[in-house]
């Protein structure tokens, strides 16, 4: 117990940003899970006049339909996080599989899979998402699936590079020499050693998916029956929160998205950096560029 506390303390000292982000993410996730218990009001019942300003009873006022904004936000976090995590899982399955296959087998398989990955990197993600969502029709399931199927490229790249170096390690080669099949080698030796990287990329993808979901919801492509954070921003726009000067309906959902995205980014990057200290501190989308940069200290100042 004591040792555990010590470890947590040293982690906070070493990576304050990541610890802060992790803590925040944990709190938000807990609040989202406990929404039915925590939310002070039902999120879809009128409890007062529309766009009532914040008061002691309703900390962030009421929405355009007279719903309590705090309760709406809590329930919306639930939907957004659900979309984020499920989409990230789909994407890590796709990206992980492609990355591992490309890195492990190399040769022609690598060539083809890398070309496919490059193609998806170049195609602008949001427009493609919009087209797919528009054609498929809005439902939570479709959104999760299309987000997952389009946000895997970064993971695939990073994991491919890792597996490529793993493949040359002695224990992997020995496993092959001793007659271990490809499947055995992959699941016994390659996957366990890429697991932390998979986790890091999943967390990074959660933030990307939540971010992209707000965009889809804003364009009316979200599930109309599920109120996500993106839907709340759309409601604020569609129903005139700006002209009604109802800042309490507009500001909180956007800030909450930023907090979730930022926390997840900080945590994901910290894990990735811990695994690969040479990687620079760049935000998640920049990983798309696949370039490793060396960060160096400033030369000592003499001025």
């Amino acid at each position, binding site marked *: 117990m004591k040792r555990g506390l010590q470890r947590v303390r040293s982690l906070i000292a070493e990576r304050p*940003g990541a610890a802060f982000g992790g803590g925040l993410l944990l709190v938000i996730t807990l609040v989202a899970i406990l929404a039915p218990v925590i939310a002070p009001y039902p999120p879809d019942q009128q409890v007062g006049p529309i766009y009532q300003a914040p008061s002691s009873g309703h900390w962030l006022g009421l929405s355009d339909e007279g719903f309590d904004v705090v309760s709406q936000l809590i329930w919306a976090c639930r939907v957004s996080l659900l979309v984020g995590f499920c989409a990230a899982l789909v994407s890590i399955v796709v990206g992980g599989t492609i990355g591992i296959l490309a890195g492990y087998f190399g040769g022609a398989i690598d060539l083809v899979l890398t070309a496919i990955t*490059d*193609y998806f990197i*170049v*195609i*602008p*993600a*949001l*427009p*493609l998402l*919009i*087209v*797919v969502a*528009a*054609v*498929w*029709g809005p439902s939570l399931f479709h959104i999760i699936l299309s987000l997952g199927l389009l946000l895997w490229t970064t993971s695939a790249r990073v994991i491919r590079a890792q597996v490529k170096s793993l493949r040359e390690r002695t224990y992997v080669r020995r496993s092959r020499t001793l007659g271990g099949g490809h499947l055995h080698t992959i699941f016994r030796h390659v996957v366990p050693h890429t697991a932390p990287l998979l986790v890091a990329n999943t967390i990074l993808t959660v*933030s990307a998916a939540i971010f992209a979901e*707000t*965009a889809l919801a*804003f*364009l009316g492509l979200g599930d109309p029956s599920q109120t996500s954070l*993106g839907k709340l*921003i759309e409601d*604020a*726009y569609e129903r005139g929160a*700006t*002209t009604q*000067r109802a*800042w309490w309906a*507009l*500001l909180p*959902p*956007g*800030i909450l*998205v*930023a*907090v979730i*995205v*930022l926390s997840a*980014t*900080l945590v994901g990057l910290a894990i990735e950096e811990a695994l690969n200290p040479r990687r*620079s*501190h*760049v*935000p998640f989308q*920049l990983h*798309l*560029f696949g*370039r490793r*940069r*060396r*960060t*160096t*200290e*400033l*030369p000592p*100042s*003499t*001025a």
Partner: protein
Amino acid sequence: MTRTRHVVRRIGFALVTVVAAVVANFLIFRAAPGSPISALSLRPGSSPAYRQHLLHQAGLDRSLPQQFGDYVGNLLHGRLGVSIANQQLVSANLKTAFLNTLPLVALATVMALALGLVVGVGLAWMRSSRLEGPGLLTVLTTYSLPTQWIGLVLLFVFAGTLPSGGISDEFLVDPSFFTAVGDRLQHMILPATALALSIFGQYAFIVRSAMLEVLGEDFMLTARAKGLSSMRLLTRHALSNALLPIVSLTALIVGSISGGTILVEAVFSYPGIGRAISSAVSSRDYPMLQGAFLMLTILVVFFNLVADLLAVKLDPRVTE
């Protein structure tokens, strides 16, 4: 020699990508639930014969490969079909939209670059100082804010002082050239700012890491030993050498700009390509959506290619 090969390979990849985009564009819309004419044949008095007639007219009664052939043939002739929403040629709609989007994106990119340069150099300078953490966090936060939300907040703040939507004041009668340009700029300033704010973080981080890399080089130490001032060191020696990665990565950001443009143009009802896409989505105008998506994809691929070739031109080592 390797340089020529690299250039040829990049151009080849761009062409393959465009072809793949054309195929994807065809397939995605064929996979749509219901046929594209199901909405049309719902009008009162429509019979199976009428439905058949519509199918035939749209070429949908032919086999998939034949349809694909038709589609590619039309594409090569620049025929993108007719918009369902306004009955105009999709290509004509897109041309107007493109000419509107171009200045907006250019302005936003310039703003984002300027902001990114200043902030990135500032962040590099703050390295290992007490301000580094808060500085990084601020940039990361703006970067994490939804683009449409930034636009809405700008709208909220500047609603009275600046035009909140559209591209020009319709009540200007016979404006002089300068009035017209000023009017356009006034309409562009809010969407461009929103777009710039949402993407400058990427530039700032690229500039920062490029700067840090250059600052660690030996020639920087030499320059410092020569007794040059910090400012001169930073701008003349470090920044000029850090520009290469900035240029080569700039066009890669075009992808995220294209996404941001859709959202920003929706917020400010700015009649560009982004707005064409979002309104095609809400009116289920598939020909328009298909055309706009294809155009956007080709533009992104094109700018990627330009950046790639520019990077080779600036630094032949890139081909390695």
